[in-house]
């Protein structure tokens, strides 16, 4: 296993690197972590023509070894450190033939690192169509490396690439590109001596990047700092002269290998499309239309599969209760684990669909236009054009939306987006809203055509979006970042989506969600189940004894007695005791201890609220029987005052609480996964709780 050949894919964004990665590995992929850094590591196995498997690592797309985003720092980190577990035997530079000059900049940097390297020259079909003539053989001779022409979207050249990888020697053959040592001769030799590095360009890059390289020790970083000061090394000036020297080399190489005949055809078409898609008025209208279509489809198409998943789990639970020996273990398995699992699985259709649509938008190039159109608007509140997609996705579910915030390069923009996305009203809040609105808002028409209940619901949604934007604006001033925000972004030409990539994206996002978030959700579901099912032993025994007395047996049917027992047991369970213990704290919001229990049980997922209400009010523990829950809740009376529990003030206070509080374990798990730090989910949970508490308090006190 250890001697397996390891190949790293490197290249500019939009070069078809991920298509090539998918073609090489298929579904043999895994997403892991690069040790010590917050970047996903995509790797996979590829079968070579000789039957051997090699490991392919897909490094983040970048325009240069000088990183602009946190993700890009990993490229040099991996390629410059032989002890890195991902250090490759061979680098494949994926280059876009239609954009060769800019793509070769990264190649010359990689080549100078002294690793064996080959070029996968992609999009050769488009280059030919665009009347661009590339003499691949001469280019290969000039650089002295194998160059494999590909049209990855048409699966052309993949076999040739595999052959080239298989027969590649372990020696770097490429000719040097620029005189690296001339840039900072003394500094390079001092750093090379200090760290015993043979390659001058690695030494030079370390001079630039030493501050954030994970493999350097604190002492080494300090020593390099002293050397950098001693030789008066100016990082940006050195980088500028290096870039200019590299382009001189590239221009020289391209002079007799590439002949341009006219402007690329594809680009003209893209320009024409953009005339409408980024138009001042039509561009925005079309964008809203696209979003509307996506959300309609997500809700419409996921309804049936979600119903199917629920049905299967209900059936499984019934079968389990029927055939497994009854006892605590079975209850834990069915009401704890299985219930928790179904809470996870039911989101799969929405996640898969949302990711499929996002992947299509990205693949076609439309996403970069959305970013382009809305950047100014979003920048005003501390977000970026790229935050639009996660925020809107939040209307369906915050979990995949937070995952999709990965496309935001700027760290601060991305963090703010992740922090505010859960404020947007997701589909899990809908059942709570509908239940409570139907309790307190009369089914009346305003001005004859505005449905009052609908108006209340829409206001809640609008409120959530406005709050998200306000919080983003506040965070903009709170989060410190030394990374300058800028917006230099390629607008790739429009292309048809690659269905294969869409499929793999769906599969990968679902797999990640189920394995990563699933673990946490199930753990919490089990804990909550235990809390809600057990209480101080003597009290539970008393309850059972109480209902065994003749007065109850004669008065109620056995079914009703079971319900009464369940209700009273919940009241005296640890969850119930918790609800009572927090009652003084939530009283100013208009909540009693029963709502307190619902708040605790629905900590893991908001949907649990309706089910808990059903159990608490001694209705069949079935959330689908909404109508009967509603009646019982409407008739509920406060024991101390004799007033109704669900007054308008309490209901609205409760809705506001659910709108703002982070009652979703899946979201917290995914925020932890995406930020790879426990700090962010804690901050998020706290600020949302404070916001929810204060807002509910104000609403209750005003409406009381």
């Amino acid at each position, binding site marked *: 296993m250890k001697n397996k050949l390891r190949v790293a894919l490197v290249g500019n964004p939009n070069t078809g690197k991920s298509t090539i990665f998918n073609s090489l590995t298929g579904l043999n992929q895994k997403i892991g972590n690069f040790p010590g850094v917050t970047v996903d590591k995509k790797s996979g196995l590829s079968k070579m023509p000789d039957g051997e498997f090699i490991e392919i690592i897909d490094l983040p797309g970048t325009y240069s070894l000088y990183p602009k985003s946190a993700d890009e720092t990993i490229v040099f980190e991996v390629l410059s450190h032989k002890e890195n577990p991902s250090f490759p035997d061979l680098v494949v530079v994926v280059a876009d033939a239609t954009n060769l000059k800019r793509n070769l900049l990264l190649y010359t940097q990689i080549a100078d690192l002294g690793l064996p390297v080959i070029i996968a020259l992609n999009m050769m079909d488009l280059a030919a169509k665009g009347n661009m003539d590339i003499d691949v053989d001469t280019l290969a001779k000039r650089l002295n490396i194998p160059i494999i022409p590909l049209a990855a979207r048409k699966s052309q050249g993949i076999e040739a690439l595999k052959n080239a990888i298989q027969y590649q020697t372990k020696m770097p053959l490429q000719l040097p590109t620029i005189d690296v040592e001339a840039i900072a001769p003394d500094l390079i030799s001092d750093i090379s001596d200090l760290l015993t590095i043979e390659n001058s360009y690695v030494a030079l890059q370390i001079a630039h990047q030493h501050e954030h390289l994970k493999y350097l020790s604190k002492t080494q970083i300090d020593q390099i700092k002293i050397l950098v000061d001693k030789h008066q090394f100016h990082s940006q000036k050195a980088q500028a002269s290096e870039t*200019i020297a590299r382009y001189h080399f590239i221009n020289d190489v391209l002079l007799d290998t590439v002949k341009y005949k006219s*402007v690329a055809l594809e680009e003209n078409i893209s320009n024409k499309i*953009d005339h409408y898609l*980024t138009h001042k008025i039509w561009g925005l209208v079309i964008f809203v239309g696209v979003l509307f279509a996506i959300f309609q489809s997500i809700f419409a198409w996921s309804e049936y599969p979600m119903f199917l998943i629920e049905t299967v789990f209900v059936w499984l639970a019934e079968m389990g209760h029927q055939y497994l020996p009854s006892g605590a273990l079975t209850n834990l398995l069915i009401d704890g684990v299985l219930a928790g699992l179904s809470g996870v699985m039911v989101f799969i259709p929405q996640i898969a669909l949302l990711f499929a649509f996002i992947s299509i938008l990205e693949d076609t190039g439309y996403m970069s236009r959305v970013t382009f159109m809305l950047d*100014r608007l979003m920048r005003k509140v501390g977000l970026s054009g790229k935050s639009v997609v996660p925020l809107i996705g939040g209307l369906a579910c915050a979990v995949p939306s937070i995952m999709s915030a990965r496309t935001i390069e700027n760290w601060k923009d991305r963090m703010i987006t992740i922090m505010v996305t859960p404020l947007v009203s997701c589909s899990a809040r809908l059942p709570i809203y509908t239940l409570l609105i139907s309790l307190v808002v009369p089914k009346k028409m305003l001005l004859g055509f505005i449905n009052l209940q609908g108006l209340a619901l829409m206001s809640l949604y609008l409120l959530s979006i406005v709050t998200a934007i306000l919080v983003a604006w506040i965070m903009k001033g709170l989060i410190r970042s030394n990374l300058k925000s*800028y*917006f*230099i972004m*390629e607008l*790739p030409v429009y292309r048809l989506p690659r269905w294969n990539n869409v499929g793999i994206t769906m599969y990968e996002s679902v797999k990640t969600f189920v394995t990563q978030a699933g673990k946490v959700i199930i753990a919490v579901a089990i804990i909550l189940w235990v809390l809600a099912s057990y209480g101080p032993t003597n009290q539970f025994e008393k309850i059972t004894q109480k209902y065994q007395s003749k007065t109850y047996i004669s008065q109620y049917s056995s079914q009703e007695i079971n319900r009464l027992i369940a209700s009273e047991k919940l009241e005296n369970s640890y969850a119930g005791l918790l609800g009572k213990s927090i009652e003084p704290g939530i009283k100013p919001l208009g909540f009693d201890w029963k709502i307190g229990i619902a708040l605790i049980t629905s900590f893991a997922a908001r949907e649990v609220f309706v089910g808990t209400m059903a159990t608490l009010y001694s209705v069949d523990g079935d959330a689908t029987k909404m109508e009967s829950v509603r009646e019982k809740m409407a008739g509920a009376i406060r024991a101390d005052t004799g007033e109704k529990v669900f007054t308008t003030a309490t209901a609205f206070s409760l809705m506001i609480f659910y709108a703002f509080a982070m009652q979703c374990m899946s979201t917290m798990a995914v925020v932890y996964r995406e930020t790879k730090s426990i700090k962010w989910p804690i901050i998020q949970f706290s600020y949302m709780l404070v916001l929810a508490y204060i807002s509910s308090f104000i609403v209750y006190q005003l409406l009381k």
Partner: protein
Amino acid sequence: MKLSQLGVGEQGIIKEFTDLEMSVKLMEMGCLPGEVIKVDRVAPFGDPIAVSIAGYQLSLRKKEASTIELV
């Protein structure tokens, strides 16, 4: 003349940059002195802009475009 002063459809040749940090990022993206740069369109809210450079399209904010000095 700065790039930010060009109207839609107008073009110029890059002379130099007035901001070192921006110049490094821009050059990496193919914006080099001597290259022809053309303004293709402006975003609906007036910023950023889209330009054609070195055979592809790039978008950048006006603030960034103002660091590019044209011949």
